[in-house]
């Protein structure tokens, strides 16, 4: 048995260029009431453009609206 097998893998959130946030690891998505939102896949995409028709998940709509955002942190005047 792999002694590390029981360890939860850390959750990572990666903003993809002009696209959604991809979430990997042992994550759970809950609404404000604490109800779990069912997710069937190991990697999920969360909407970043705000226009998905199945928020909080991405449905690819960002491509239709010309959403632009970098993968890294945006520079801003206070940064």
């Amino acid at each position: 048995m792999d002694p590390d097998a029981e360890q939860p893998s850390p959750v990572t959130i990666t903003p993809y260029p002009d696209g959604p946030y991809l979430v990997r690891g042992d994550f759970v998505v809950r609404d404000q009431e604490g109800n779990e939102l069912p997710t069937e896949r190991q990697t999920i995409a969360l909407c970043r453009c705000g226009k998905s028709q199945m928020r909080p998940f991405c449905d690819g709509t960002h491509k239709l609206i010309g959403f632009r955002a970098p993968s890294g942190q945006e520079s801003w005047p206070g940064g």
Partner: protein
Amino acid sequence: MAGRLIELPSPRGPLSGRLFEALEGPPDQGLEAPSAIDSFDPIADEDLQLALYVAYEIHYSGIRGVDERWEWAPSLLAFRAELERPFEAALDELAEPAAGEELASVGAALQAIVADDPGPPLSRYLETQGTLEQMHEHVIHRSAYQLKEADPHSWAIPRLSPRPKAALLEVQADEYGGGSAERMHSVLFAKTMTALGLDPTYGAYLDRLPGVTLATVNLISLFGLHRRRRGALVGHLAGFEMTSSIPNRRYGNALRRLGCGREATHFYDEHVEADAVHENIAAWDLAGGLAADEPEVAADILFGARALLQLEARWATHLMDSWERGESSLREPAAVPA
């Protein structure tokens, strides 16, 4: 469920006729490679595309009455190479070569390529005004690939360096249902076919599929069976995933509008969510990762995406034009011999 086994289709000309006749005999006997094939339009050449399809299919599936040793018979490989030559030449004419500045960011270049999709609005048409019969035809065309969805791209796995390989596996694990056969995308597609009253048997509609449809599948097999085209194979997958979620939402909406239930729409609905994940991994981690590790194939990555979009556009145009003329986009059912 039994292993894959297809029937030899009816030949459509001298190339497929000669090939199928030889395949019914002992392996590696009686098959002479054709001399330079003169095809006016290789992409839509019924005879050439069907012969090539069967020459590739022997790597995916059994063929009833065909000795399995034909798969690596030198005479079949030589025959296939002659079929591939005009096909690859036609692709070179269709898909423009990558521009030098595109290679600086393959992910960004792929985004620009798919944003410039040359195809007609097939999914929008089906969503808003397609008939059930037209949806059935669409599903039958797609069955040529969707019943083996993900399989040809798996040929890239042993050929990739660790970072793009990990990205490909992240996509493929999901394509194959994340460990659940029930959720495997090819299985979901078979369920859609059943729900629509169509035959989900692998290869059942081969005789009905026109050359322009077979070409869309031959494209992936060509890239998948030649290691030298690993860049194009990765670009094909990236392009496929990046042009999937929005059309699939529309196909699901089309079936809902036509009164179909979740059994029929699940495949499409699943692809909206799945491919919204996959497209990012495929463009940036898989294609971008491969381009970083093997810059010499970066141009072929973009070629693979462009060739995909061009062939999909040819195919979609065939469907829309056939329907506009009030005709079926499928070939006539073969006459039953008396």
